[in-house]
């Protein structure tokens, strides 16, 4: 039986209905909504559904093909896991906005046209901002404002691009778009902002670590992966994406090594992983695109798992900086083990999920003759193991014992992490179900002797480097510092520019006023000197002088008239 209910609608109606149940049950009610949505999704099959005619345009709310089905499935699973993780949260604002955010992401995935995509794009932007604000601190308040500004800018660019695209082609269909048109370029940048392209990535590392422990899990799943989906849909094979992706895979790992806030470390590693996907989309071959979307699938699960484990640490200890943590394996052994599963998956260890998807992109890069890009991605693979695979578990759970003695997090958190970990191991050991869902036919065998050995060598020698640098004292210690990144451009440089501009405008305005005042004073003074009590015009003149002036004027008149 095929359902008649659009998937996003279940989330939106559910978000309203959860207010009918008492506060303490709202978390469970949210979970029920996501499970119902998953059930509804299971009854859907490929096709185009729910078209609405608005003016002369047809809006499509249900374009289900292999690509959107895979991301739709992923987002439904992510919504269930993240909601289960946050069942204990007694905060109606978060309950509401989490569901709206997940529903918005699912609506956007199934959008068949750019206008529908724009509407859900903006719903996601606004709903997700509340997950940052829900931390309810002065810092998260300001961060949320910055985050919203960036997200809305991306939406406006999308709208402007869609309008331009419509003008040029007469179509609003959300399909492949030519990046070399104005509309295409605007849409490309709109997607690029949400995808955290280099220099457009500041919002991600600024906002994600500021959200609530549970909010970040939602944030990590949807926005950026929707952007990956949108790029795969509209710009596959766009060459510039290869280089953008390779840059994204490279530069964040340097920041991740020196970052103290462990959720910010994960945010950097998120950009690093999206870099692999963007590179795959840019390569554009079937193998590369399959690699990009399957890696997006795995990434949502292992990145959620890592964010959940750090969220659990923050929830239980109130701390998240590497300088304040360490030795937690003693009191949180289950969380530690689950975090290690996430770390092994993101590092692409054999038998874990990253191994079966990331390598497709690497092989595609090599096959297409992009040797330098291949070496960049290989460097980034070693780097991600270094900071996400080793640093996160090491500084949080092992390393120097910070003396914190706590307990495991609530059972719902543990179960959510266990489900995500289960997916990571299952997809790693038995990738064939994931492969069968991919948009193109898969002729790829991840478990060859060469691949297993070479990947093990890469990772264990990275671990060796970490161990030697650590024992020799060369490894940079965690420090209570922040690191300037591209958000500096608007937080410091932009602010300074505004201050300087304001000062200049004030100065110029004051000068103009001064000049005007001086001129007016001169005019008034002149008039005064003419007509004032001592002025020329105010003098008493003799009759003779008057007669001479009259004679002169008459003479002048005669000259002009007859001359």
């Amino acid at each position, binding site marked *: 039986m095929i359902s008649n209910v659009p998937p996003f609608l279940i989330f939106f109606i559910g978000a309203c209905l959860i207010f009918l149940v008492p506060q303490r049950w709202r978390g469970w009610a949210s979970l029920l909504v996501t499970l119902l949505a998953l059930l509804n999704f299971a009854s859907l099959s490929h096709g185009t559904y729910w078209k609405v005619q608005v003016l002369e345009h047809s809006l499509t709310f249900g374009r289900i093909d292999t690509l959107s089905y895979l991301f739709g499935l992923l987002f439904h699973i992510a919504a269930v896991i993240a909601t289960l993780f946050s069942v204990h949260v007694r905060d109606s604002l978060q309950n509401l906005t989490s569901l709206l955010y997940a529903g918005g992401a699912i609506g956007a995935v199934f959008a068949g046209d750019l206008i529908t995509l724009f509407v859900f794009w903006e719903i996601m932007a606004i709903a997700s901002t509340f997950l940052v604000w829900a931390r309810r601190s002065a810092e998260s308040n300001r961060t949320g404002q910055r985050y919203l500004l960036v997200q809305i800018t991306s939406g406006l660019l999308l709208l402007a691009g869609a309008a331009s695209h419509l003008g040029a082609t007469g179509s609003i269909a959300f399909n492949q778009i030519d990046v070399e048109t104005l509309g295409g370029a605007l849409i490309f940048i709109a997607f690029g902002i949400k995808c955290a392209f280099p220099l457009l990535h500041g919002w991600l590392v600024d906002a994600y670590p500021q959200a609530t422990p549970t909010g970040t899990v939602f944030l990590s799943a949807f926005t950026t992966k929707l952007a990956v989906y949108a790029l795969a849909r509209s710009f596959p094979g766009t060459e510039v994406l290869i280089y953008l992706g390779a840059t994204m895979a490279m530069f964040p790992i340097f920041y991740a090594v*020196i970052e103290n806030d462990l959720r910010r470390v994960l945010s950097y590693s998120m950009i690093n992983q999206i870099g692999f996907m963007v590179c795959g989309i840019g390569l554009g071959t079937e193998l590369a695109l399959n690699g990009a979307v399957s890696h997006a699938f795995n990434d949502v699960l292992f990145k959620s798992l890592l964010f959940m484990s750090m969220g659990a640490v923050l929830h239980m200890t109130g701390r998240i900086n590497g300088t304040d943590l360490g030795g937690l394996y003693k009191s949180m052994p289950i969380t530690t083990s689950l975090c290690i599963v996430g770390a092994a998956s993101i590092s692409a260890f054999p038998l874990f999920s990253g191994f079966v998807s990331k390598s497709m992109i690497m092989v595609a890069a090599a096959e297409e003759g992009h040797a330098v890009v291949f070496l960049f991605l290989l460097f980034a693979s*070693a780097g991600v193991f270094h900071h996400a695979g080793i640093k996160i578990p090491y500084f949080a759970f092992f390393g120097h014992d910070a003396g914190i003695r706590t307990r495991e997090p609530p059972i719902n958190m543990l179960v959510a992490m266990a489900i995500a970990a289960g997916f990571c191991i299952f997809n790693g050991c038995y990738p064939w179900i994931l492969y069968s869902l991919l948009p193109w036919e898969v002729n790829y065998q991840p478990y060859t002797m060469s691949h297993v050995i070479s990947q093990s*060598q890469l990772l264990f*020698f*990275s671990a060796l480097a970490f161990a030697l640098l650590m024992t020799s004292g060369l490894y940079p210690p965690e420090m209570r*510092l*922040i*690191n300037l990144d591209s958000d500096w451009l608007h*937080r410091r440089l932009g602010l300074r520019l505004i201050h300087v501009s304001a000062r200049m405008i004030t100065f110029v305005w004051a000068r103009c006023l001064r000049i005007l005042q001086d001129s007016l004073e001169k005019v008034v003074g002149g008039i005064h000197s003419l007509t004032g009590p001592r002025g020329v015009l105010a003098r008493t003149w003799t009759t003779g002088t008057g007669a001479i002036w009259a004679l002169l004027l008459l003479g002048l008149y005669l000259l002009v008239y007859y001359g």
Partner: protein
Amino acid sequence: MMEKQYWLDKPSNVKRVLVGLYLLCAGLLLTDALHHRHSILQMEGWFGFYSVYGFVACVILVLAAKELRKLVARPKDYYENNDDQ
């Protein structure tokens, strides 16, 4: 009351882990002599390519990151005095 001693609390056990890692790395490196790697790019076929690349990449990563810190690190309240202005 004495707190429970964990396995990793003993320095000798940490040493055992490290020695295990060294042996594993040595073993993995030696497999290159026994197994001919199926490779797409020529350099992949070089002896010890992945091992050396992984090790060198991480050393460069950490040393470069230390230099980066000199450039970009600021006190924690760097933005706080400016955000409200």
